Structure formats: structure tokens, C-alpha cells
């Protein structure tokens, strides 16, 4: 049998047998639900404008309530201000989350402290300053009416140098979610390759198969088969995510398909880079317990890639963002974040892909040799040197 049909048969078996297993379908369903939930739940929890519940202890100075409302508006929310009879009642209302913020006359502003919503904390800062400034103005003899009018003024507009558009937001969401899925995908499918190879080795079926196909055909068929399943899962996730986003009314910019395509591209590059190394880890082991140890360095590298992506997400034009896309083991997760969030030059994507592909070629050859050298070896786990011996 020539190589291509042999590879196709091996890949076909891989897709059929794995696609038939309950584990695969349960895993896929969990992933789909997870992604849909990640998109839908934040929207459900977010009922338009935030309403701040503010209590004022004792007699409120004139002008304080309007200024609280103006402050809340500056933060994009509304305020409901109510007078509270005693400091004790106000504190217990704060404690039971009946109130977000309490103004204790001239003495200051009280928030819960632990788990305070960042926008409540922001409002507290503004209100605390208002209280102090209004007291000074009143002491300086400014009439209450003037104070009220002054503090009810609308805030001056705040503009962004780099505009935050819904498109940016969507890109960020795609990067955050996409990186998590990339990470899970590479680790999961890599693990499948390792355990699949080890299953063939430990059940000794490899010897039967290898009497008909060459080791590199068996290896290629296995990683292609698992890669196709992975790609299918990826496509299903992208579809589910898009449907979920549209159905809850999220804005999807025209760049969304491109962003998803970029993630898929890097999934393929990352899988190509890692898959044969995962196979070699399986072939080098002889018992199921040894496989995670043998694959350990690979999962660690993928985790490093994920951490690099997190760093790039918070600083998409920093040093890490410029360097890590050119380190092949990290590039699959670093490059999408750099591309979608930072200001990547046009040459960066092809250059990063080329470096990754070149490294993939070298690694596949090396791992393929290690695989062929150890798949039929029995006994203890092979050392790297033994595996690579021609």
C-alpha cells in the first residue's frame, strides 16, 4: 500500500473509533456548553445601567444628593439616595448589601470593604471628595443653591486616544476565550495522541499494524485523525460561540470571522508543532502511568505559552508581546493575542508562522525518529538518547 491511502485508513479509524466513544461526545458537549455560558452569562448578569444604592445618615446637607447622582452618572450609572435614621441602621444595611455606600454626614464615606464592586469604590472616592469640598464651600459662605447647581454639573467628556469600540471588545473576548480553548485543545489532543500511541504499544497491536504500514504512516495517520477531530470540535465551538453571541444581542464586528480564523490557524500550527512530540512521548513509555511524565515537558511548554498570552493580553505592545511570537513553542498562543490586541506590523504574522513551521519541520523529524525507534521496544521507558539512536 502506498503511503497516502495507508495514512487515510489510519486517520479514518482514529476519527471513527474516537468519534464513536461516549467520552468524546461528553467532552465536546461540556466544551460547547462552557463556551456558550461564558458568552451568555455575563450578559444576563448585566442589566443595563448600574444603580448605586446610597444611604445618607442624618440630615443631608443640601446639594449632596444631586452631586451623588451626578457622580453616578459620570460613572455611567444611576443613584438612588435615601436618608437613614442612624449610623447603626446604615451599617447593617451595608452589611446585608441593602446599600452599596453610606455617607456619614461630614465624617466620611463608608463602603463594605471586602468584595466591593470597583465602580462602587470609584463612586465612593468621588462622593468623599464632594463631601469635603462642599463643606469647605459652605464654610466659605457659598449659598446652598449655588453649591447644588455647581455639583449637579455634567462632567467634562473623557475621550480615549485609542478608541474603545465594540470591535476591540469583541476581539478581546475572542482572544481571552480563544486562548483558553487553544490551551485546552493542545493539551487535550496532545494527550489523546500520547495515550493513543501508548495504547497501540502496550496492547502490542502496533506490531500487527506495522507489518502492513510503515511507522511514519501510522504516526501521520494518528496525528492527522486526532487533528481532524480537534478541528471539528474547534469549528463546533466557534459556531456555538457565534450563535450564543448573536442570540444575546452581542455586537459582532465584521472582523470576527477573521479573528476566529486566526485562532484556528494557530491551533493548526500549534498542533502540528506539538503532535509528533506527544506521539514520541507515548512511544517512549511502556505503561499508562509513565505517559504523563513523558509528556510533562510538553504540557509545561503549552502552559508557558498560555501565560505568555495572558501577559500579552494585558500589554499587547510590550517586550513579551514582541518576542514570544518568535519562540515556536510559545508562538501558537502568543501570536493571536499580539495580532488581535496589539499593533503588529504586517510582517510579524508571516514571520512568526514561518519560524514556527521551520521549527515544526525539525521537531517532527526528530520526534518521528524517536517514535519509530521506540514504538516496538518493550521493557523500561526509553531514554531520549536511546530513542534517537539511528
Amino acid at each position: 500500500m502506498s503511503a497516502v491511502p495507508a495514512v487515510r485508513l489510519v486517520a479514518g479509524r482514529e476519527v471513527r473509533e474516537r468519534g464513536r466513544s461516549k467520552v468524546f461526545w461528553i467532552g465536546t458537549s461540556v466544551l460547547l456548553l462552557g463556551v456558550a455560558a461564558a458568552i451568555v452569562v455575563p450578559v444576563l448578569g448585566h442589566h443595563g445601567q448600574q444603580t448605586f444604592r446610597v444611604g445618607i445618615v442624618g440630615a443631608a446637607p443640601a446639594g449632596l444628593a444631586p452631586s451623588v447622582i451626578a457622580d453616578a452618572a459620570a460613572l455611567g450609572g444611576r443613584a438612588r439616595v435615601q436618608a437613614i435614621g442612624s449610623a447603626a441602621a446604615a451599617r447593617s444595611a451595608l452589611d446585608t448589601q441593602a446599600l452599596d455606600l453610606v455617607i456619614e454626614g461630614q465624617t466620611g464615606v463608608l463602603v463594605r470593604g471586602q468584595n466591593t464592586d470597583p465602580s462602587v469604590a470609584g463612586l465612593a472616592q468621588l462622593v468623599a471628595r464632594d463631601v469635603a469640598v462642599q463643606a469647605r464651600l459652605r464654610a466659605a459662605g457659598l449659598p446652598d443653591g449655588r453649591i447644588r447647581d455647581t455639583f449637579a454639573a455634567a462632567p467634562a467628556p473623557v475621550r480615549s486616544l485609542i478608541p474603545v469600540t465594540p470591535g476591540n471588545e469583541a476581539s478581546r473576548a475572542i482572544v481571552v476565550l480563544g486562548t483558553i480553548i487553544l490551551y485546552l485543545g493542545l493539551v487535550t489532543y496532545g494527550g489523546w495522541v500520547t495515550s493513543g500511541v501508548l495504547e497501540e504499544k502496550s496492547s502490542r497491536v502496533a506490531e500487527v499494524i506495522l507489518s502492513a504500514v510503515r511507522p511514519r504512516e501510522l504516526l501521520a495517520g494518528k496525528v492527522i485523525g486526532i487533528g481532524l477531530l480537534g478541528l471539528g470540535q474547534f469549528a463546533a465551538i466557534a459556531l456555538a460561540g457565534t450563535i450564543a453571541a448573536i442570540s444575546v444581542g452581542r455586537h459582532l464586528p465584521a472582523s470576527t470571522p477573521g479573528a476566529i480564523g486566526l485562532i484556528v490557524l494557530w491551533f493548526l500550527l500549534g498542533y502540528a508543532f506539538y503532535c509528533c512530540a506527544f506521539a514520541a512521548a507515548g512511544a517512549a513509555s511502556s505503561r499508562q502511568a509513565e505517559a504523563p511524565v513523558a509528556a510533562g515537558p510538553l504540557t509545561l511548554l503549552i502552559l508557558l505559552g498560555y501565560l505568555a498570552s495572558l501577559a500579552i493580553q494585558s500589554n499587547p505592545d510590550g517586550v513579551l508581546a514582541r518576542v514570544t511570537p518568535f519562540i515556536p513553542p510559545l508562538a501558537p498562543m502568543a501570536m493571536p493575542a499580539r495580532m488581535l490586541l496589539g499593533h503588529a506590523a504586517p510582517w510579524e504574522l508571516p514571520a512568526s508562522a514561518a519560524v514556527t513551521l521551520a521549527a515544526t519541520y525539525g521537531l517532527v523529524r526528530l520526534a518521528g525518529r524517536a517514535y519509530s525507534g521506540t514504538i516496538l521496544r518493550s521493557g523500561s521507558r526509553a531514554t531520549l538518547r536511546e530513542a534517537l539512536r539511528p
Partner: protein
Amino acid sequence: MSVSLAAERAGGPLHGRHRPGLLELAGLRRWYGRTVALDGLSFTVAPGRIFGFLGPNGAGKTTAMRIVMGIELPDEGAVRWGGRPLTHADRLAFGYMPEQRGLYPKMRVRDHLVYLARLHGLTAGQATAAGDRWLWRLGIGAQAFERVEALSHGNQQRVQLAAALVHDPQVLLLDEPFSGLDPLGVEDMAGVLRELAHTGVTVVFSSHQLDLVEDICEQVAIIDRGKVVLAGAVRALKRRGSPRLVVEVEGTGPDWYEGLGTAAVESIDPSRIRVIFSDADPQVVLDRARAVGTVRRFAIEESSLSELFLRAVGP
């Protein structure tokens, strides 16, 4: 699959799609570090024969079979088929049952056989038909849709044999096919092998149980420490080995045979002993035996393979 192969296979019976020819192992050498596994192993197997590849554990049988199947490479020497070096494509016409049995435990029996047949170049239709035929032929047709791991040990062995046969190979290499089989299983397996040899398949099997298989093979190569110590047609070998004289006499002392020739003695029960002469005049022995007691058995027997082996490797 190459188009020509597919066309050839679609044409009719699968036998005869390749040239039938001698399988020839020529001067195979293989070292594992400093251990010599094969030390210039050479022998030839004719098509349509059952060939026993015999020898004690560790003699190099498995290594030789793996080299024939291309799973291992020899350090020196070559394997030829029909006079030409054996290629990967040729090996698709070979069936192989490794010493370490192995199947995908989670795969369904029929799917498994179809998969293996297709890897050997059969079309989906041919593979399914061949899979079903062998499942029923080996008596496991009812288990076709069960997972391999759900089958009994004996039935898994049958699936393993079916896996080696499903693509109707021209050459069959079976590594220790009789190990772990009960006497009935041995007879079943021997029947299948005889049938295949009858249709022109070259059957090569290895065994370390020389006496168990001496009735099954027509030709043998007995190897020890990586080289052939004895080879040829079983009958000729046995004839060549000097026959032995087995005498059982009742009601006599244990020393009646002394002076008659080289002999080994076994007592069967207190009053009866068996004496095996390797060089003695039968007439003289018979006269003496009749004189000392009641002769219960008097037979001239051919040597067994294990005796031949011991003589060949002995001091």
C-alpha cells in the same frame, strides 16, 4: 492502494496475485548490543509447505520473523522472495501473527478485521466479505460486533489468527501460534494451517515445543543461538537419525540388558522396566529379553525432533 493491485484483487481469487516463490533467509545476523541474536541464519521455505521454525526460547526465532516482516532490520544478510529482495509491497501479501498478541481492545471484532484487511490493500467490500468469512470459518461469527476485550482468551486468539489471515496472504508467519492453546485448540489451528498449505500458502510457524509440533510440519529448521543446527524434511531427518529400540520386559531384574549396547532405562512400575537402546542388535536383544521375562513391548522407533535437536547441539 495502487490501482494495479486493486484491479488485480477485484479480478477474482486472491491467491496467485503475486509470483509464488521460495522464501529465503540468507545469512541473517543481528546483534543487540553485545548479545548475538542471529548468527548467520539461513534457510529456505518452499511455497505450499508447512514449515516449522523450531528451537528453544531465546534461539532467535522471533527476531528472524520480525526481520522477515520488516519490523526489524538485520545487521547483515537479506530476505528474498521468489529470488528478489523482499519489499514492503511484497509484505502486504504476508500474514503475521506476532508472539506478543495484540489487537485494539476497544475495537469491534469485525471492524478490526476489516481495518487490517484494508491496510493490506483490500477494498472495503472485499475486506468486509473476507472478515465475515474468516469469523465464521474460525467459529466466532456470533461475536463479530463485540469489542475485542469482551471476548474470552481463546476467542481473542482466534481473532488474532483471523487478523493474520483476513487478507488471504500468500505467506503466513506465525510466531508461537500454539502457545496457550489446549489440545483441541492445537488440533483446530493445525487443521487451518494444513488447509491453507493445501491451497498453496507458505506457512511458517515457530515453536519451542518441538514434540508438540512434529506431526504438523513437513519441513523444519531447528535453530539454536541464532543459527540452524538441523534442517530438512521431517521424515528424512527422522530416518537419518538412527532408530531406537524400545523394549519393555516384565518380571525381571533391572540389569538384564547389560552388555547389549548403549541403553537408557526407565522403570514403569516395580515389576516392569523400559529400556531404550540407541545401538544394539534387535535380534540379540529380543532373545535375551524373552529369556529373562515376559516381553510386553518391542518396537523400533524413529527419533523424535527433540532427540535430534539434543544430538545436534549436544557435546
